[in-house]
C-alpha cells in the first residue's frame, strides 16, 4: 500500500527509472510503480512532464518531480529524518563533489555506452567503447579516492554517486554480452569489479536492476528499430 502517496512513472529498462527506484528503496519508501509504455504515453505522464515527456517522473501527492538526479535529491530531502541513511553527504563540498561526478556519469558514461551499443559501424563502436574505458578508469580513480577503503563511493553505505553509476550496471552487462569483453577490466579497474558486486547484492538494490538477458532482448529490439 502506498501510504506516502508516491507513484513512480518509470520503465524497467531505463537506468534513470532504476536510479529513482534504488533511492526509494534506500529510504524505505512504498510506492506504486507504473511502467510507462513510451509509445502510448498515459495522460498522467503527459500532464506531469510537459517539457521533456521522459521517464522517470515521481508523483508525490499532487506534485510531479522530473529528472532522476533531481528525484533522488528530493527523496533524500523530504525523508531526511525517517531513520534511513542519507543518500547525499552532509558536507557542502562533498555534496558538490557528488553532484559533479553524478553529472559526469550522465554525460560521459551514458553517451559513450549508448552510442557504442547502437553505433552501426565498427569504427564508431570502437571509438565509443574506448571512450567508455577511459571513463571507467577515471571512476576507478574516484572510487579509490572517495571510498576511504570501504565498499562504496559513499563510503560504508551506498550514496549518490553509487546510485548514479550503479543504475547503469545492467546496461554495462549488456555491453559485456554484445562484445564478449568483461564490463570491468579486472587488471585496470579492480576496485570497480568489487564495487559492482557489492552494489548489485546490496539489500537496497536487490530485485531492482533488470536481468541482463531480458535487457539484451530489449536492446536488440531497439537496435533493430533504428532506421538504417
Amino acid at each position, binding site marked *: 500500500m502506498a501510504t506516502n502517496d508516491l507513484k513512480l512513472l518509470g520503465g524497467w529498462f531505463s537506468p534513470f527509472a532504476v536510479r529513482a527506484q534504488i533511492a526509494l528503496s534506500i529510504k524505505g519508501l512504498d510506492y506504486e510503480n507504473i511502467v510507462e509504455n513510451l509509445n502510448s504515453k498515459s495522460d498522467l505522464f503527459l500532464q506531469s512532464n510537459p517539457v521533456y515527456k521522459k521517464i522517470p517522473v515521481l508523483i508525490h501527492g499532487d*506534485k510531479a*518531480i522530473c529528472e532522476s538526479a533531481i528525484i533522488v535529491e528530493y527523496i533524500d530531502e523530504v525523508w531526511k529524518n525517517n531513520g534511513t541513511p542519507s543518500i547525499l553527504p552532509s558536507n557542502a563540498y562533498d555534496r558538490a563533489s557528488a553532484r559533479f561526478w553524478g553529472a559526469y556519469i550522465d554525460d560521459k558514461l551514458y553517451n559513450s555506452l549508448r552510442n557504442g551499443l547502437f553505433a552501426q559501424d565498427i569504427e564508431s563502436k570502437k571509438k565509443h567503447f574506448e571512450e567508455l574505458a577511459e571513463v571507467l578508469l577515471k571512476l576507478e580513480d574516484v572510487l579509490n579516492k572517495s571510498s576511504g577503503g570501504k565498499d562504496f563511493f559513499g563510503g560504508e553505505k551506498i550514496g549518490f554517486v553509487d546510485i548514479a553509476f550503479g543504475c547503469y550496471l545492467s546496461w554495462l552487462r549488456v555491453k559485456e554480452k554484445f562484445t564478449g569483453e568483461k564490463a570491468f577490466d579486472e587488471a585496470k579497474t579492480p576496485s570497480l569489479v568489487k564495487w559492482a558486486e557489492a552494489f548489485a547484492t546490496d539489500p537496497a538494490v536487490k530485485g531492482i536492476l533488470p536481468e541482463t538477458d531480458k535487457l539484451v532482448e530489449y536492446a536488440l529490439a531497439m537496435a533493430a528499430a533504428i532506421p538504417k
Partner: protein
Amino acid sequence: MATANQEEVRLLGKWASPFSNRIDLALKLKGVPYKYSEENLANKSDDLLKYNPVYKKVPILVHNGNPIAESLIILEYIDETWKNNPLLSEDPYERALARFWSKTLDDKILPAIWNACWSDEKGREKAVEEALEALKILEDEIKDKKFFGGETLGLVDIAANFIGYWVYILQEIAGLELLTLEKFPKVYKWSQEFINHPVIKEGLPPRDELFAFFKASASK
C-alpha cells in the same frame, strides 16, 4: 555579510561568459569577497588545469583551496556555504522545481537560442523555430511572477542571466528578433526586473564591451 576569517574565495572565469557571470552574481548577492582571475581558454593556466582536470573549463570556484566546477553545482555550493540571501527555498519541492528549470535552461533553452543566433542560412529557419519554442516554455513558466524564484531573485533567475542579458546582444548581432516585448511579454518583463536589480546591474559585464566581443566573433 559573509564572515571573512582566513577564508579564501577565488573565481577563475571569463568575463564574457554567462556561466562564469552566474558565479559573480551569486557571490555579489551574498556579499562574499573574492579574487577573480580571467582565464584565456586558448592558453589555459596551470591553475585551471589543476582545478578542473576533467573538463578544463571555467567557471571554477576555489574555496580555501578546494575547487568546485560546473556553474549550477557551484551555485548550490555557494548557497549551502553562505546562508544569507538564500538562492533556493527550504521547501524540497520548490528546490526540485528550481533544479529542474536550471537544468532545462542549460540543456534545452540556452542551446536553442545560441544555435539560432549563430546559425547559417541553411539551418536558420529550423533553429529559430526551436529558439522560439524554448522561449515559449519560459513564458509559460514565469507566468506573472516577478522572478522565477517568486518575489525574490533566486537560483533560476541567476541561471537565466543569458536570457535576461546576453540574448538581446546576440540577437541584435544575428539580425534576429527572438525575445521581444511583443512575442514574449512575460519573459521580457522579467528580463527588465532582472537587469535592474541593484546587485545584478553592477554584476553584469558592460553591454558595449560584450557587444563588441561577440560582434568580433561573428566576423571570424
